[in-house]
């Protein structure tokens, strides 16, 4: 693998140009896929024989839950890169992921509560996945708060990244420690890749939604990251040219 090509994007101007090029494509493609997915999910997909129309919230619940976790993983990887190579771009990316990830976690929790109220009879149960999702929200808040509290930019970056890395190590432990309670949450529907327990007509909008969310997320990172890079480099020459 040619590492030089990757190193090239570690320099702020190159990253900025690349991200600005990528951003409109990702945002529009993500919006487009999400739109098709929601139309397919809300109008075309058949009713669930047990849950009726209420199951349709799955099209917003599952993608945001997926994204809340993969965003944390992305934040952790960006933090590792930032700490190892002292890359300012990676720190900027990690910082711009955090609010979006926290938002996705909150959306997953709220839609889950809305879904749980008619289905289980309560909005909240002390179930493994709900609890670990909530803990994930706390981890995001910890990162954001730590970053915001430390005044000096470099120190804030490195301290918050250390916390994110610790969170990455700890997240599986937290997850399995709560899984070993009794669990009410239904088993995940499409993680069993070989034989999904969902019919095709319901599945394709869901997959579209997940992919659309992911691409939109990349677009959001490009936007947030490049804005953050601009803020940090505001005294350098290339920013004045932009």
């Amino acid at each position, binding site marked *: 693998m040619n590492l030089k090509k990757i190193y090239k994007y570690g320099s702020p101007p190159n990253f900025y140009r690349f991200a600005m090029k990528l951003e409109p494509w990702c945002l529009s493609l993500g919006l487009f896929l999400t739109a098709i997915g929601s139309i397919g999910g809300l109008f075309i997909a058949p009713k669930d024989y047990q849950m009726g129309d209420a199951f349709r919230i799955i099209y917003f619940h599952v993608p945001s839950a997926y994204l809340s976790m993969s965003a944390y993983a992305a934040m952790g990887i960006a933090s590792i890169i930032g700490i190892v190579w002292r890359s300012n771009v990676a720190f900027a990316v990690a910082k711009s992921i955090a609010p979006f990830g926290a938002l996705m976690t909150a959306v997953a929790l709220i839609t889950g509560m809305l879904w749980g109220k008619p289905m289980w009879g309560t909005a909240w149960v002390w179930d493994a996945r709900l609890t670990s999702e909530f*803990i994930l929200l*706390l*981890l995001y*808040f*910890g990162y954001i*708060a*730590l970053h915001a*509290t*430390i005044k*000096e930019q470099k*120190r804030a970056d*490195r*301290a918050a990244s*250390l*916390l994110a890395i*610790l*969170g990455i*190590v*700890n997240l599986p*432990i*937290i997850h399995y*420690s*709560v899984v070993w*309670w009794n669990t009410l949450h239904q088993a995940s529907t499409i993680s069993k890749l070989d034989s999904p327990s969902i019919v095709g007509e319901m599945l394709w909008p869901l997959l579209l939604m997940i992919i659309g969310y992911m691409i939109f997320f990349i677009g959001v990172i490009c936007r947030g990251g490049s804005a953050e890079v601009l803020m940090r480099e505001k005294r350098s020459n290339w920013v004045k040219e932009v």
Partner: protein
Amino acid sequence: MNIYFQLFSREIRVAFKRWTDALTGFILFFLIAILFPLISDSNKEFLLTIVGPIMMFSAFFASMLSMQNMFKPDFQNGTIEQLMLSKGSFVSLILTKTIAYWLFTSLPLILISGLTASIYFVSASGILIIQLTLLLSTLTMVHINAFTAAITLGIRYPGALMTLIITPITLPILIFGSKTIENSILGADISGPLYFLTGMMMLSFFLGPWITASALKISMD
């Protein structure tokens, strides 16, 4: 004389001078445990079901209360900087400091927990299990506390932030600690959660000093 032993004895002497720190946690631990039967139901079955969570909870709070002063005085008077410059390995020095700190703040809790557990009508063998659980879990928690104290060192009022950082990380230990105590009282097998606690303790001894040392380095510059 060995540098680690010197640091250790210095920490102990300083801790005796600042004995109020340790005493605050100790009193909090004792008071939480005593107040619960007073303000809630005091029949035997109920107390036996809640003794596990109460023990873990009060140990967690007691260790959190005293941890703000873990590095702060030494940071302000320059001791940490000297440790960083000294010829011993900084990570091992931090480990020494953490263990000395644990001896002063958590060991008294384990000793007194026999008394508080007997308030909850726990049998003699149950008390031993509770003390073992507290031993394993405080040895894990002290590393988490050290990391949190180190990373929030430069912040003026770190209280709320510390709580936010420390709670998610400590959660597995609280869960498995109270599970161990609960299982031992119900007469069930305790080896599962106990192994988990031991594993967490090993992991934190392995990773904790490294992470704490790098957090201190970040806070220094």
